[in-house]
């Protein structure tokens, strides 16, 4: 038993390093995708302390819009632009209809409101796009679909080009967001808003403008995420469940931190894959990925209650 837990997995890793690399790569790619969803969360959380549960469905919605438009015969790149337009309209609508009347309400109420939005979008989306699984227009968007096959140590390592693309795009996105939040006037305003929106209002920061902006950026992130996930697994409402995975990523990284979202995503992606392959499947009957991320995040939080990169919780009296 102890051997199975402490020795055998490592022996396995050492004896098949190419397989270990493949496991890590798969973990990295899903980690990046979790992180992308988490990024949308972080942005919205920072600017409004809203725990935006709807980010998952926004991903689905963006992807469906893109594919749906393409199915109507619109050229791929125009589809992207139109989809962005749709996401903008969505952002404006959410701000007008939901956020504005709920300004200043307790966090949990706003959280609940985003679940309301989620339900609404699920129903609305199914009526418009139908429930069937659809194929992402990967090639039409010019994303390479071949795979790169490497043979380290005489083994086999398969890297999908679209995964590589996703990793690169995610990295760029993070850099851009970090610069935006920390170096610009708008970024500062977004952070201020998250701390105390009354005070933000009083210094002339317009909630409406910033919220539309932030939700729109979240919409862009959702589209990117949707393309990346869709290319891997097709587009359907079942995608929505992966949004749950973004939660432990967020908590682990810290709710306010862009860096946290990325680091958390990568950590969780790789560790859960390693755990599943080397411990979960042989010892626990598999499928540990459903909870591993949550338990991992929980354990980390016990030591750092604000997550790895979250802002220190200020407790004063």
């Amino acid at each position, binding site marked *: 038993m102890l051997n199975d837990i402490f020795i055998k997995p490592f022996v396995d890793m050492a004896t098949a390093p190419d397989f270990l690399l493949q496991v890590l790569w798969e973990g990295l790619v899903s980690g990046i995708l979790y992180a992308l969803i988490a990024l949308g969360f972080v942005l919205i959380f920072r600017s409004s302390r809203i725990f935006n549960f709807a980010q998952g469905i926004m991903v689905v919605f963006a992807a469906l819009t893109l594919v749906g438009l393409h199915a109507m015969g619109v050229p791929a790149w125009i589809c992207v632009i139109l989809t962005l337009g749709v996401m903008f309209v969505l952002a404006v609508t959410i701000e007008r*209809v939901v956020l504005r009347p709920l300004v200043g309400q307790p966090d949990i*109420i706003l959280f*609940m*409101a985003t679940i309301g939005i989620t339900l609404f979008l699920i129903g609305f989306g199914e*009526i418009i796009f139908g429930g069937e699984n659809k194929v992402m227009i990967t090639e039409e968007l010019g994303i390479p679909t071949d795979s790169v096959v490497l043979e380290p140590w005489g083994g086999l390592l398969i890297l999908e080009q679209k995964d590589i693309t996703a990793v690169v795009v995610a990295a760029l996105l993070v850099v851009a967001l970090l610069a935006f939040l920390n170096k610009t006037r708008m970024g500062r305003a977004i952070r201020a808003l998250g701390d105390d929106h009354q005070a933000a209002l009083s210094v002339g920061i317009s909630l409406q403008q910033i919220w539309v902006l932030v939700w729109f950026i979240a919409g862009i992130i959702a589209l990117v995420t949707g393309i990346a996930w869709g290319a891997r697994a097709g587009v359907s409402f079942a995608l929505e469940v992966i949004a749950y995975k973004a*939660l*432990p990523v967020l*908590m682990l990284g810290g709710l306010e931190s862009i860096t946290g979202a990325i680091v958390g995503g990568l950590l969780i992606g790789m560790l859960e894959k390693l755990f599943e392959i080397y411990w979960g499947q042989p010892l626990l009957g598999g499928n540990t990925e459903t909870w591993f991320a949550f338990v991992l995040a*929980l354990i980390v939080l016990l030591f750092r209650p604000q997550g790895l990169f979250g802002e220190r919780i200020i407790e004063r009296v």
Partner: protein
Amino acid sequence: MLYRTAGQFKTTYKADQALFPVRQDAVLLAVILALVWVIFPLVASEFTFQTLLIPILIYSLAALGLNLLTGYAGQLSLGTAAFMGVGAYACYKLVTLMPWLNPVVAILFSGVFSAGVGVAFGIPSLRIKGFYLAIATLAAQFFLVWLFEKWAWLYNYNASGAIQVPNLEMFGVYVAGPQASSIVQYYVVLAVVTLLTVVCINLTRGNLGRTWKATRDMDIAAELIGINLMRSKLTAFAISSYVVGVAGALFVFMWRGAAEPNLFDIPLSFRILFIAIIGGLGSIMGNYLGAILIVGLPVVLNTLPEMLGLPISPATVEHLNVMIVGALILFFLIIEPHGLARLWALIREKLIIWPFPH
């Protein structure tokens, strides 16, 4: 002036602490009790029992349990369904291991197990707060459901991996299982729910309730005035999980009749959270109002197109349903973020001063 409180004076603190200091409220309560204990059972059809009355009661109870934790003690939980699952599986093991056990006793006892699990997953709340705490409850949510699936002992190793409620007798009448009649099950549920509601009302208006509310409103201050936060939070987790666990046992034994692990997955947790929030956090009555809305509404919506003779396909109705429920949640949150209970209180306040506007 229907709702006039003037002239009703209290001369002792005891009278002032009575449950319903305003006479009209007591009358209203009497009417409601008469309805649920006498009138409904007389007139309800099988369909009404199965799709409205019984589920509304059970969901209310689950929401009540959650409300103790989230509404009163301020600890956000997204793992309600899993704790219900613990109650249900515990009850299943109890009645299969000890077939002679009185089923109602088994149901009430199974809550103890979920209380235990609840406390275990509540321990992180001592360090982790707010949304971060949600992760602890989510860990419970996903881990427990996984466990229900993987731990074959829990479902007596049967092939489907699901639990099936056996026929259970009490005083010569079937109370659970396929042979039990709806009206019997309704009364059992009603009795348990009434009992636990009274208990919860007492707990929340007494010392423990104040401890919880203090912890919720400002935990630092609470600790500084002498509240042991650990005890306060853990009792909240324990009692809340107990109630939720009992609700889970009722859910499977008095209503569903069978359960697969993923029944206790996160959508159920959210559903109960909806009920608690739409009803009103920190309110007892709200849970009932919320359950009526969230459980009753889709049923009504489903029958609506048929009644109106609209030619909408069932699938579209379903989609519309989801959409409408989403929209309604938003609607109610916007008109009164503090829930239906607060809305009622507001109406009541207006009634009291009616016909004057302020």
